[in-house]
C-alpha cells in the first residue's frame, strides 16, 4: 500500500516518538508513506470551536494536495483523523458548506479523498495475519490494555471504521503481536483531550480513572493511538496519582511502539526513550528477537 501521510503538528514535536514508530513499523510491514508536501495544520479543536468555515477549509487544503498525489491519506493523530474525516463529511453532505469551502480554498472539492487512520490501515489493509507472519519477538506474557479514547470512533457516521462503544482494531493488532490484551470497560472513555493545558485538574481526574481501571483489569501497560491521550496519561500520570491516590507506574506506549518491538525493531528506532514513565521494566521481560515468522 502507498499512502499520502499527514503527520500533523503533534507528530513533529511532543509526539515525535509516535512519528518515528509509525514510520518504522509501516516500513517494516512493506507500506510506503510519502508526506503530503508542505502540509499545514488541520485546525484541531480550536478551529471547530471558533470558526466553522476555517474548521473545514484547513483540512481541505491538505486533502487537495493528497488528491494531486493520487493516494489515500494516512494519519496517526486521532484529532487530525477526525478533522480530515469531518471536513470530507461536511463537503459531501452539505452543499452550502461545500460552496463556502470552495470559495475559501479557491478550488473545487467533492470530499472524495479517502482518509484512513493507522489502526484501520493495520487491520483492514495490511491485516492481522500479515502482521503475525512478521513478528520476530512476540510480546508474550505482556498484558496490554488497549485505550482508544474518543475521536477514533466518534461520531460513527463520520469516522465509522469501528463500533463506537466497543472498538477492537488495536486489540487485534496487539494479539497479532503476541500480547495478552485485557478486557476492560474504559476503552473509549475520554482523557480530557484538549483541556490538558487549560484545565489540567480535570485531565488528572480522568487519567486517574483510566489508569486505575487498566490496572484493576490486570494490565501492565496501555497501548494508545493518539498523541493527546499519550501525553495526558504519561506526562500527567504523576500529577494524577498525587491528586487522586497512588497508582503503580504504568507505561503508556503508542501501539506502533509495541508493534515495532514485536517486529524486532530496536527501542531507539521506536522512540521508546521519549516516554516519561519508563518502559524499561517491560522491555527486560521480552525475549530476544528470533528469525521472521516466529509467532505466526
Amino acid at each position: 500500500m502507498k499512502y499520502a501521510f499527514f503527520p500533523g503538528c503533534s507528530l513533529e514535536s511532543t509526539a515525535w516518538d509516535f512519528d518515528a514508530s509509525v514510520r518504522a513499523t509501516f516500513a517494516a510491514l512493506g507500506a510506503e508513506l510519502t508526506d503530503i508536501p508542505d502540509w499545514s495544520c488541520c485546525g484541531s479543536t480550536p478551529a471547530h470551536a471558533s470558526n466553522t468555515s476555517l474548521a473545514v477549509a484547513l483540512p481541505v487544503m491538505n486533502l487537495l494536495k493528497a488528491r494531486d498525489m493520487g493516494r489515500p491519506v494516512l494519519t496517526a493523530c486521532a484529532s487530525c483523523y477526525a478533522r480530515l474525516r469531518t471536513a470530507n463529511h461536511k463537503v459531501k453532505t452539505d452543499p452550502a458548506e461545500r460552496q463556502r469551502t470552495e470559495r475559501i480554498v479557491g478550488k473545487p472539492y467533492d470530499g472524495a479523498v479517502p482518509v484512513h487512520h493507522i489502526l484501520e490501515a493495520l487491520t483492514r489493509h495490511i491485516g492481522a495475519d500479515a502482521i503475525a507472519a512478521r513478528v520476530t519477538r512476540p510480546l508474550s506474557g505482556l498484558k496490554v490494555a488497549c485505550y482508544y479514547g474518543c475521536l477514533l470512533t466518534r461520531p460513527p457516521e463520520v469516522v465509522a471504521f469501528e463500533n463506537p462503544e466497543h472498538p477492537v482494531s488495536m486489540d487485534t493488532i496487539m494479539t497479532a503481536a503476541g500480547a495478552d490484551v485485557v478486557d476492560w470497560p474504559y476503552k473509549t472513555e475520554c482523557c480530557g483531550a484538549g483541556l490538558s493545558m487549560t484545565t489540567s485538574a480535570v485531565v488528572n481526574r480522568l487519567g486517574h480513572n483510566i489508569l486505575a481501571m487498566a490496572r484493576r483489569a490486570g494490565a501492565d501497560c496501555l497501548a494508545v493511538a493518539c498523541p493527546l491521550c499519550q501525553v495526558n496519561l504519561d506526562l500527567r500520570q504523576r500529577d494524577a496519582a498525587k491528586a487522586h491516590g497512588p497508582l503503580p507506574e504504568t507505561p503508556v506506549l503508542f501501539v506502533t511502539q509495541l508493534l515495532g518491538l514485536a517486529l524486532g525493531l530496536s527501542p531507539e528506532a521506536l522512540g521508546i526513550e521519549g516516554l516519561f514513565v519508563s518502559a524499561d521494566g517491560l522491555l527486560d521481560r521480552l525475549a530476544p528477537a528470533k528469525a521472521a515468522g516466529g509467532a505466526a
Partner: protein
Amino acid sequence: MSEALPWNDPTFLRDVERRSGASVSACFQCHKCSTGCPVAPEMDVMSSQIMRLIHLGARDEALASQSIWLCASCEACTTRCPQGIDIAAVMDTLRMMAVEAGVTLGDARGNKFNTSFLSSVRRHGRVFEMGLMTAYKLRSGDLLGDVGKVPGMLKRGKLALWPKSSGNAKEVREVFKRADQEEKNR
C-alpha cells in the same frame, strides 16, 4: 399572565439550530448526554440542562455557563443521543456566540487557548507548541502552571525551540482571511 418570562428569548433556539445544524428542539430531556459526559462532575450546567436553557430562550445563562468551555469535544453525547442531536456542535456554536456577544467569562481559559493556538497556525501554517504555550500563558496569566514539566519535555525532545513552518504558510494566512469573511456572512 401576559408578561414574558425574563429569559424567554424566542430567537435563541432558532439561532442555535441554524448555526449548529442540530435540532435542539428534538431534545426530550432523557439526560443520556449528561450521564455519559466525562466532565459533567465539573460542569455548572450539564449538557442536557444546556439543551433545556436553549428551549427556554435563556441566552445569557447558556452563554455564561462554564460548561461550554469545559466540554472536551469528545463527542460521546453526539454519538449516544437517541434523538440524533449533534450536541457537541451545539457546544461549539455556544462558544462562538459567547465570544461574539462579549460575554464576560468567569473562566475564559478555553477561549484564550483557542486564540493562542489559531494565532500560531495563522503565522506558521502549523502549531508551534513552545510559542503556543508562551502566548497562552501571557493571555491567561497562568504563568507557572506546568513550568515544572518543561525540562523533562526538553530532555526528551518533546518541545521544539524553533517553529517548523509549513511551506504553505502564506496560503494558510489567505485561507484564514477568507474564512473569517465567510464566517461573518454565514
